[in-house]
């Protein structure tokens, strides 16, 4: 038998690993869910170069004029059918032949419909013989790093680190308390700090797999850029995971039932899902609540990761975010140690 066999820290950490690996649902949520989400968002928000807009017209002549534009596909519809197609979103615009000219029916609050209006008008005017006054050409730019998927990958990474850390802390901890296993463990000579340390150690090992898996996928499938130092990115992930583990420990420090813990978890995570800029920039929220938004650990984590991955900013220039994460590690951890209930 090796020496490790008798190390309680090793045994406790191995137990955490085994219990995690024997929970297939957990593996799905932590490894595959973020990838599914990235794929889904990547498809939904992909930059479509040949973004063809669907429009309708009331006469065959108009339809022909519209179809001549590469940005449009057109079909002939009666005014009633066309209005219905418009209402259901099947077409973006209906061109109606009137005695005195053409009327465009569309929703001017929909950006795509406004684009359709411009294209349709240009097509119809061109068909009617209008000539451009100034010659114009296009130079197209598709730069990686400016796409939505590039923006959302660091957001998903941060969100995933939050979920897996809080989840991975709260569920097993509360279950162990509920099943009186915590009580049995403190009745044994187990050093208490090792129990908490085993959670952190197994989390860190899992973190390496989780982050490597997700980021390689983002790199290979979407070509998401890594402009900053990879080591610093790893450090940021580590810091993020520690901060959320501490928060998870705080959530689980007193809850006696899974129901109570789930409620607390939602209370902690929901504001961050909404406010921390996972899917869109957090700067869109009103200035009054910006100080709160900025102080959230997920906001800090995502900003720092975006800074690293998309802009290549060094960690020394993001000390505010790093400081926020460090504070979110120490404060909840300290409080948890004071109020933690072993039974």
């Amino acid at each position, binding site marked *: 038998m090796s020496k490790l066999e008798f190390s309680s820290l090793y045994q406790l950490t191995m137990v955490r690993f085994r219990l995690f690996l024997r*929970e297939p649902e957990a593996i799905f949520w932590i490894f595959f869910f973020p990838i599914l989400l990235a794929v889904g968002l990547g498809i939904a928000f992909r930059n479509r170069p040949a973004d063809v807009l669907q429009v309708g017209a009331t006469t065959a002549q108009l339809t022909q004029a519209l179809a001549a534009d590469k940005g449009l596909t057109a079909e002939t519809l009666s005014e009633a059918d066309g209005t219905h197609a418009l209402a259901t979103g099947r077409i973006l615009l209906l061109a109606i032949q009137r005695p005195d000219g053409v009327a465009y029916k569309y929703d001017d609050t929909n950006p795509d419909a406004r684009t359709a209006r411009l294209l349709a008008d240009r097509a119809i005017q061109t068909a009617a013989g209008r000539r451009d006054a100034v010659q114009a050409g296009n130079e197209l730019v598709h730069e990686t790093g400016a796409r939505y998927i590039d923006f959302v990958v660091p957001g998903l990474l941060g969100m995933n680190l939050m979920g897996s850390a809080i989840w991975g802390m709260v569920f097993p901890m509360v279950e162990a308390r509920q099943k009186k296993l915590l009580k049995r463990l403190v*009745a044994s000579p187990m050093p208490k700090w090792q129990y908490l340390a085993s959670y952190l150690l197994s989390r860190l090992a899992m973190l390496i797999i989780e982050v490597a898996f997700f980021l390689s996928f983002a790199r290979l499938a979407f070509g998401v850029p890594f402009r900053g130092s990879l080591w610093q990115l790893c450090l940021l992930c580590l810091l993020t995971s520690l901060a959320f583990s501490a928060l998870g420990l705080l959530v689980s420090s007193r809850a006696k039932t899974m129901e109570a813990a789930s409620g607390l978890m939602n209370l902690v995570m929901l504001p961050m899902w909404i406010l921390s800029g996972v899917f869109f920039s957090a700067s869109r929220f009103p200035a009054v609540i910006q100080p709160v938004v900025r102080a959230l650990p997920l906001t800090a984590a995502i900003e720092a990761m975006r800074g690293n991955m998309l802009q290549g900013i060094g960690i020394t220039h993001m000390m505010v975010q790093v400081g926020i994460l460090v504070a979110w590690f120490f404060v909840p951890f300290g409080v948890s140690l004071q109020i933690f209930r072993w039974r």
Partner: protein
Amino acid sequence: MGEGTGSAVAELGSRAGEQADGPSLLLRGVRKAFADVQAVDGLDLEVPRGECFGLLGPNGAGKTTTIEMCEGLTAPDQGTVEVLGLNWHNGADALRQRIGIQLQETQFPDKLTVEETLRMFRSFFKRGISVEESIRTAQLEEKRKSRVGGLSGGQKQRLAMACALVGDPELLFLDEPTTGLDPQARRHLWDLVDGLKQAGRTIILTTHYMDEAERLCDRVAIMDHGKVIALGTPQQLIGTIGGEDIVEFAVSGIEATGHGSVDVAPLLAIPGVQSHRVDAGLHQLSVSELHLAVPRIFAALNQQGLHLSEFRTHSATLEDVFVRMTGRNLRDE
């Protein structure tokens, strides 16, 4: 936290002698209240080394609170708790290495195997028996690689027992080890405890099964409402009832007149009948020399013109002791 009653501590004798042959467990004036319930109300106990000692009583008698104070899981409001000559204030780490604990309703992780669970517990102890040996002792050889979730109730209890044994403890605490088990699993566990007794370990167990206490314990303390109401060997306690046997009977045809129509005086006059009580229409007599008393009981009832609807006898048990002392049945809760 109270430093305990001075006079009790003075009785302890020389501290030097304690390590070798002092009591395994010593409680003096121990009290513990939860909210407005006085769970333990002034408890004095002394358990010598090598004894199997039973704490007996109905649910809510304070057994678990008592054992948890001994295990250092609950701090007493008042009084002193000494375990193996040490106390929980300054000897906790050393004590944890030397005692084995099985708690009520611990659920080990379902997805670990028996062996993995034991290996984890073994790693907490500086010295102890091997995982293999603990598996053998608890007779879980066939289940070594099975997950805890797939074990039967009895096997789970034996696993809990094995976890308590991996540190090769001098003192073993078992809190209701057989509650909820079927009769066969209980007997299996009793055999296990028997084996541990023979190995010379001190065992403190709580139970609300009187037969379990009679079967396993050298001495028994009966607890009720946080106090010890009787203390002694099972035989001594049964002896306090006065008779070795209990006669129970019920009569029919007295509903109209109420049960006062059984005249108790002639029954108590029969030689060998020690006492009488009625519980829900069932009359109980404690009797010595059963073979002589029974015919006379029949005759006396016959004389009063009563018809027996039930009649049975059994040897007096700790259950009868409890009923006699409290006027309640053990499972009245």
